[in-house]
């Protein structure tokens, strides 16, 4: 997803931000850290905007580099987004974020999108967070994802080509794998 958007973006000055949530890093993935990471990605490989530099200098001068507070950070993000022609924000695995952080984070994200018609948000997660997303983004389009038969076949071919014990494989087994597994897609994992 992120690479697809980046391919499009490389033709113009569109910014693509990609963040991943992870059970193993839950305590680091606070609202502030996640929003900070959005801004970090927005300014990545770009000239750092003047307002961000100014906020940094102020933090350095007045508070020994205290990270920006939520309202200040939101203003910095909004001003940065406004300076770009289009911004895509992609957040993966929202269900892996702690619920208390997630609701603050979604509320903040809502504020960013509302004020910026040039922003698009792409979210993924388990169905369990669907209701929460609806509450924060009533207009969101919900798309269920499950691998297609072709996805499973492509995945299997790649895995079989990388087989570390090719001697244990024969033609019959190979044929059976390629026939039986794609037929049982609902139990398949391609991730």
């Amino acid at each position, binding site marked *: *997803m992120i*690479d697809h*958007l980046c391919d*499009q973006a490389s033709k113009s000055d569109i910014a693509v931000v*990609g*963040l*991943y949530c992870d059970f193993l890093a839950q305590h680091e*993935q606070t609202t502030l*850290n*996640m*929003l*900070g*990471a959005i*801004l*970090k*990605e927005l*300014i*990545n490989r770009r000239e*750092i905007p003047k307002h961000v*530099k100014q906020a*940094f*200098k102020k933090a*350095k001068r007045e*508070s*020994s*580099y*205290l*990270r920006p507070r939520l309202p200040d950070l939101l203003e910095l993000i909004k001003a940065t987004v406004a300076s770009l022609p*289009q911004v895509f924000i992609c957040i*993966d*695995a929202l269900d892996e974020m702690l619920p208390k952080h997630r609701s603050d984070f979604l509320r903040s994200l809502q504020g960013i*999108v509302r004020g910026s018609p040039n*922003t*698009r*948000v792409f*979210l*993924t*997660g*388990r*169905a369990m*967070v*669907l209701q929460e*997303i609806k509450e924060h*983004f009533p*207009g*969101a*389009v*919900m*798309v*269920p*994802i*499950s*691998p297609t038969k*072709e*996805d499973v076949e*492509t*995945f299997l071919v790649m895995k079989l080509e990388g087989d570390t014990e090719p001697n244990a494989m024969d033609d019959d087994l190979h044929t059976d794998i390629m026939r039986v597994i794609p037929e049982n897609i609902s139990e398949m*994992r*391609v*991730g």
Partner: protein
Amino acid sequence: MAYNLFRDIEITGHIDSFNSPKDEKRLIPKWLSPLEPHQRHHGVRTNRVDGVGNWFLETNEFRNWSGASGGDGYVPPVLFCYGDPGVGKTYLR
């Protein structure tokens, strides 16, 4: 929440001497967040199987969202893809 963000610099005691644009370029991202989304993305890209999930890029939902089709002018700004763990959400290209 005053993290020891710049321990490496503060130890040297030259707090006022790193105001160059080059230092700002290095320090401002650190100041904004300890998270490193780029590193994770690199791992995902390495493990992705080409072609898997590409059907999604052709859906009307995605095309409307990304602005590729134009349509009736209305582009929904938020798209949420959901599914069980392991169905390939992270690896959509």
